[in-house]
């Protein structure tokens, strides 16, 4: 899968064929296109933040779907929300945030690495997100954010997130419960960030890890042991797709994890030892598609910044007492 911008007289070249951009114009998203030369075909897909995450140029380690999804829900990124993200990185999460807060929310995304800032800014413009995303080149650890008392949610993906907790506090809209997430691969970063959150009066500190596993479904042969007791030789091959269809048409014991395994010895014992299909009973079963899966992305640290009501004397314990008495 890859991403391309349609331009006049350009071609898209692959091992399996050449595709002319001019011929793509006017086709529908989801349509299959034949190569002008070569035997290849390809599908033209409508871009989504999820597909973009699969094809974007990696300028940094990027966020993947499970983290993006969980963070978005915890930060309550719904239409209208004002959000800060730093660093922009490869812009993987930025696209998803923009979708979730459209049409009237706004994302302010900060990146201190100039080259990365410029590439991300160009992508946001090319993807028509300029009205929702403001891209900024700024070292927030040294200079803080140029936004005060405004945003609903803040997302930090920085090597030293603990250094911007103070700046984050200032950026939150004081009239709502501010929600912050820090994304860190190492536990030591989490430990320091949590201490900084506590010192700055954030509450409801929680930390999560989220992963997914992928599965495949397949028909596996699951013959009765009576076949082996009868001396029949069973070849344990998986069904190919064409065989499956034939199998279905025959309306045999297809797909059944049958509980009626006694009493069907007759099939096997009447057959000769030739591996005929009567030896097979197939069962629909699942298995992980790949032996290896992602084992870790990052630890997700969340916290809230609760507004302090003016009319209230606040009952708090210990170290936060002083903090809490300051009224905003």
């Amino acid at each position, binding site marked *: 899968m890859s991403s391309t911008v349609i331009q006049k007289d350009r071609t898209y070249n692959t091992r399996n064929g050449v595709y002319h951009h001019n011929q793509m114009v006017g086709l529908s998203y989801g349509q299959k296109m034949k190569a002008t030369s070569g035997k290849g075909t390809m599908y033209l897909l409508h871009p989504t933040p999820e597909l973009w995450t699969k094809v974007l140029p990696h300028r940094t380690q990027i966020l993947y779907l499970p983290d993006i999804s969980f963070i978005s829900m915890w930060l309550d990124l719904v239409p209208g929300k004002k959000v800060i993200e730093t660093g922009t990185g490869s812009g993987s999460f930025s696209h998803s945030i923009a979708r979730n807060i459209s049409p009237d929310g706004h994302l302010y995304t900060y990146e201190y690495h100039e080259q990365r800032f410029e590439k991300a800014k160009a992508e946001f413009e090319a993807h028509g997100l300029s009205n929702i995303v403001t891209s900024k080149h700024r070292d927030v650890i040294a200079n803080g954010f140029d936004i005060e008392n405004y945003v609903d949610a803040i997302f930090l993906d920085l090597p030293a997130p603990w250094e911007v907790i103070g700046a984050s506090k200032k950026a939150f809209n004081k009239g709502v419960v501010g929600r912050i997430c820090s994304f860190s691969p190492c536990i030591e970063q989490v430990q320091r960030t949590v201490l900084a959150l506590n010192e700055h009066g954030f509450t409801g500190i*929680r930390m999560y890890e989220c992963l*997914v596993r992928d599965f495949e479904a397949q028909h596996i042969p699951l013959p009765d042991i009576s076949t082996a007791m009868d001396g029949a030789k069973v070849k344990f091959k998986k069904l190919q797709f064409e065989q499956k269809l034939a199998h279905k048409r025959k309306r045999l014991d297809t*797909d059944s994890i049958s509980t009626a395994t006694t009493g069907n010895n007759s099939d096997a014992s009447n057959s000769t030892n030739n591996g005929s299909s009567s030896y097979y009973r197939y069962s629909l079963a699942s298995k992980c598609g790949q032996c290896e899966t992602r084992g870790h992305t990052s630890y997700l640290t969340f916290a809230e910044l609760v507004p302090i009501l003016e009319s209230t004397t606040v009952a708090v314990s210990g170290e*936060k007492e002083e903090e809490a008495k300051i009224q905003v």
Partner: protein
Amino acid sequence: MEVESNSPETTSSNNPNIIKVNDSVLIRMPSGNEKFIVLEPNTTVSLGKFGSFKSDDLVGKQYGLSFEIHDNGVLKQFIPEAFDVVDETEANNQDIRGDNQAQTLSHEEIEELKKKGLSGAVSTEEIINSITKNNQEFNKKTEYSKSKYLKRKENKYRKMFTALGPTVYNITNHFFNKNPTKTRYLRIDTLSQILSLSNVYSSSKVLLVDETQALILSSILQKIRAPGLVLALHDGDTPTFNIMDHFNFSKDTLDNLHSLSFKHVGKEMEPFIEHSDGQTSESYHRAAKRRKANHEKLAKTVGILNNTAFDSLIISTKYNPASVIKILEKHLGDSRMLVVHSPHKEALLEAFEYLRSSATFLNVNLSESWLREYQVLPGRTHPLMSMSSEGGFILTAIKVSTLVS
């Protein structure tokens, strides 16, 4: 500097961050128990042993704040501890007897103290002091164990609560923890992935089969603005959208929702014919008018189904998902997402095979999410000792066109 002042909607009555009269509010108590209350004007809300307060006192406050209930039900803001998590590590309690026989106060004495607490005659701090003072083992504990013990007691006796906002996160968690059969064991991370994978955003047109009592529906509806819409299919005569009430949706938002029984799917819409049989009474005319309006509404909804190439098809059903996909796939637009959820992996296997073998679906994927929470405390950082075992399975695919150019 782009922005300086508070944004104006903070004080507006349309602000979803502010508690309004007649809102359904999810209340979390110090015990960790949660319950929904509907904030009817001028009533008293009772939280049992955690006290009671006047409904009007909560109106106008921000969602997400915590309050302590003082004498006579006066609400004062309470800032909770930074760490939500109760420390579970037993590693340093080496010399404490494990049994619960160290308390010298009798059960009755403790109950008496609690009663005084409720009447306001004794403060929560005093109750906790009485109880800990009388716990013989208390002084044997390490400083750390003491603070943990105090926290636990405090949680048990402090008269406070948090007014949780009606976010998808809070409501999904509530049902998953309290009554997961209602929401088909749909966990927060799994739901969050459904929302991402379906690519729903403000102007999306979404076709939905949702038997989670509208949890998925509500989380989508929250994102939709006209001309976007949600068409929810259901079995029987009336849909079960119970959970939607807790989101306090505005009428504008609810106008984007249309629902239709499967009875009307795949059938020709008959023209409306009223056989008056000579009846002329006013009540008859009113009923006839209603029947006509209903018929028109139904015709309009059937029209939406049949004339829309939907941007997303999302299914969470007790029926065989493969059979539902086969009926509805033609309504999904090309290059658009199909997302199917089930609490049973096995219920999705047939659908997986169907999609893999179909020429109109690409990128077929079946996945399960895993979520673990950690305690992060200095010197005592570890995953929580218990976690959710299963949060649902998701099957996804991209619909493509069969046309070849």
